[in-house]
């Protein structure tokens, strides 16, 4: 078996038994990148030089006595909106084309402490705004299952890199589905933890009340392992929750007999691809055969989630992105005075979707419209959150499709922002409610495109989500298929 195909758990075993070295592992990953990256284009920056050094250091640590940290010597791809000290971090935006962070994000700092190996920084929709990675300011990433199609977004580079075995695992960020939707479309596992579970320190902000970092992995065990490494309170992020994180792998393999899974009627609506609906219904039957108990639930405000999200996310973005003014970092266009410099810098530095969202958010927050849009959306957010609280009185986990369709063709929705926004219809409520959710592969369309199944849990109950997802994964073999690259 080629080493680049390994999961984190498999790599750990082989590294610790010294059957392979960290250098052999990263070399294999880079050989894979050499073979497929010109077609997939998952990365913005490859850190081959640093990776070699990190692998050598890991090798020395593994040889010395004592137990290894879980991620020691394991090659990771990191979405390009997480600050890596001394390594270019662009958010796929021309306005940050030359930004080299002087500090390290908490998540990568934790992985550093464990001795991980950074493969590179992955492509994304500019500032994480998009569902196809077509909004990258640099290039388009392709879906490894069909190079004419998009990988999903905004963490499309990370999901494609995992699916194409260009890394062992990856980090993504999820504001409205940006981990789960690309994971579903690329046939890998993606988890958005509970809001506050993982520190956002060093994650370039898009919509601060919704953003959350999480793992994109080849299987559910790796998702739990990586969550172990990155979860926990961080004094540098005042919204990180002061709760201790359990060992998430403990949930794997627990019997799911009697667990109640909620099936919300609002997620099986007209407009959903029949092949997706069929795969998800089959998956629910599979879960039932494993002992889970399906229960019909209702999330009555689901139909309002997309509108609520795009008011709140764009409002927060218009404020967060005010910092890109050509003064402190990144691109600057010269102007005769300060105002002209600001305006030229922003107009030339931001791409069309980012400008559109800044305009929307500025409009929603502007005098005379604040009450009608922003405050109204915050009230509906309360209703959406209550929907989940109500549903979770009678079920342990909610099961839905991750995305209403499989991967669409590049360019198909690029000219219609509203259609693009509606592709997030099944993932957005989760961010508004702050609950955790995970997407796991649950089948393929007749065109051989992966379909994702979403498990949604209660606040801070990633364990039940992982428990069910693992049981499902072990009973199926969707995750074992590889794209033909």
């Amino acid at each position, binding site marked *: 078996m080629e080493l680049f195909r390994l999961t984190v758990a498999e790599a750990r075993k082989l590294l610790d038994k010294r059957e392979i070295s960290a250098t052999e592992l990263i070399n294999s990953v880079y050989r894979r990148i050499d073979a497929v990256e010109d077609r997939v284009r998952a990365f913005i920056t490859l850190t081959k030089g640093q990776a070699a050094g990190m692998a050598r250091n890991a090798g020395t640590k593994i040889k010395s006595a004592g137990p290894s940290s879980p991620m020691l010597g394991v090659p990771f791809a990191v979405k390009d909106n997480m600050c890596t000290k001394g390594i270019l971090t662009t958010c796929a935006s021309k306005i940050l084309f030359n930004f080299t962070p002087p500090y390290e994000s908490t998540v990568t700092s934790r992985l550093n402490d464990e001795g991980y190996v950074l493969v590179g920084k992955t492509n994304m929709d500019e500032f994480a705004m998009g569902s196809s990675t077509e909004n990258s300011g640099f290039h388009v990433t392709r879906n490894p299952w069909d190079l004419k199609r998009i990988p999903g977004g905004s963490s499309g580079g990370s999901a494609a890199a995992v699916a194409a075995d260009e890394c062992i695992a990856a980090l993504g960020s999820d504001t409205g589905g940006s981990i789960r939707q690309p994971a579903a479309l690329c046939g890998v596992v993606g988890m958005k933890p509970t809001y506050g579970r993982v520190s956002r320190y060093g994650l370039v902000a898009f919509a601060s009340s919704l953003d959350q970092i999480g793992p994109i992995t080849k299987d559910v065990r790796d998702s739990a392992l990586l969550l172990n490494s990155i979860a926990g309170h961080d004094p540098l992020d005042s*919204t990180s929750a002061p709760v201790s994180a359990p060992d998430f792998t403990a949930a794997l393999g627990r019997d799911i007999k009697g667990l109640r899974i909620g099936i919300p009627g609002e997620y099986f609506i007209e407009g959903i691809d029949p092949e997706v609906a069929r795969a998800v219904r089959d998956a629910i039957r599979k879960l039932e055969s494993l002992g889970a108990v399906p229960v019909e639930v209702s999330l009555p405000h689901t139909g*309002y989630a*997309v509108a609520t999200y795009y008011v709140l996310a764009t409002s927060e973005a218009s404020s967060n992105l005010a910092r890109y003014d050509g003064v402190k*970092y990144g691109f600057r266009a010269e102007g005769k005075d*300060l105002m002209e410099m600001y305006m030229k810098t922003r107009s030339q530095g931001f791409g069309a979707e980012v400008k*559109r969202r800044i*305009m929307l958010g500025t409009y929603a927050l502007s005098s005379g419209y604040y009450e*009608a849009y922003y405050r109204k959306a915050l009230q*509906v957010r309360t*209703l959406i959150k209550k929907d989940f609280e109500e549903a979770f009185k009678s079920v342990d986990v909610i099961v839905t499709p991750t995305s209403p369709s499989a991967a669409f063709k590049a360019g198909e929705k690029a000219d219609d922002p509203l259609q693009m926004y509606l592709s997030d219809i099944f993932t957005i409520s989760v961010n508004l409610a702050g609950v955790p959710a995970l997407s796991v592969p649950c089948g393929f369309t007749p065109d051989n495109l992966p379909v994702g199944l979403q498990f949604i849990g209660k606040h801070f109950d990633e364990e039940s989500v992982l428990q069910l997802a693992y049981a499902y994964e072990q009973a199926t073999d969707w995750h074992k298929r590889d794209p033909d690259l």
Partner: protein
Amino acid sequence: MKIKKGEIEHIAVLARLYLSEEEKDLFGSQLSSILGYMENLNKLDTEDIEPASHVLSLHNVMRDDIPALSLPGAEALMNAPSSTEKFYRVPKIIE
């Protein structure tokens, strides 16, 4: 709903963006249709509903005031398009 061109121009200035005539037309029609979709929210009666300021029950987060080193000036300025000594350089502010 339809947003007028003057309104687009006003919002663009607030957002510190220059828009080309083409962008004004395009954003005008796209924003009109997106905002039209957002008006679905008005179908809901939210009279007595508290706005969700935060999804978890976190309140003010305080920490001990412990002196620590901050980022050295040279590193903080490392990414600046223009700087001098310990300062960011910008175009003339005062007429």
